[in-house]
């Protein structure tokens, strides 16, 4: 089990606050529309969750297969 950040993309305003907060460059605004998490790089630290002004990022436990 691993914790990763999950973005509610339909509510994302693509401000990029999460991008600035991420220590691993694991989250980035995709095509100016919503923030996208790179599951491989995300360490689930939650800094983006704190940085998001709209509170639309949350941490989720996921099974990492492979």
């Amino acid at each position, binding site marked *: 089990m691993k914790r990763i950040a999950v973005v509610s993309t339909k509510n994302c*305003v693509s*401000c*990029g606050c999460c991008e600035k907060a991420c*220590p691993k460059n694991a989250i980035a*605004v995709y095509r*100016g*529309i919503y923030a996208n998490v790179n599951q491989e790089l995300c360490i689930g630290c939650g800094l983006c969750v704190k940085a998001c*002004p*709209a*509170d639309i990022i949350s941490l989720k436990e996921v099974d990492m297969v492979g």
Partner: protein
Amino acid sequence: MAKKKNWYDYLWVASVFYLILGFFNILFAWLGLICFLVPLIMSISGGEKGYCNRYCGRGQLLSIVGKRFSKNLPIPKWIFSKTFRYGFLVFFLLMFSQMLFSTYLVFADAKSLKETVTLLWSFSLPWSFASSSAPVADWLKQFAFGFYGVMLTSTLLGLITMLLFRPRTWCVYCPMGTMTQLICKAKYKE
């Protein structure tokens, strides 16, 4: 772990200077057009939301001031609802057009120059102390007064919501942000 700072991480200084300059010579208000044109040009020409994500000095300023003064409470859900964000954009554009129309009236000699700055679309503040004696047409000055009002009003709203909610609450309903996101959505048909 702090990230290495880039030159553009200091653009908040420019935002502060902009607000100060408007108290000395209103013609500096024209510089604010940079904050309107650059994000639009960027989003249209492939830079997507690069302006919001990297260069927006106001966003940086709200982050910095907010670190100390924001209550840092969750924002009400309606602020990031599409209805409010798009509604605020439309309202903002209407008010902006009205400002352009006032500029036009001065240009067409139908009205004389009014040296006031309108705050929150309703309060006219006397601003002749910053009037410019430069030999330029009155409509150029009228636009400056009007535009500075737009900038001051949006800064004020940004600061109020920064205090009440998250530091960068403004980014959620910023009309420029909404507009550039819409452009990106249209470009990639999402």
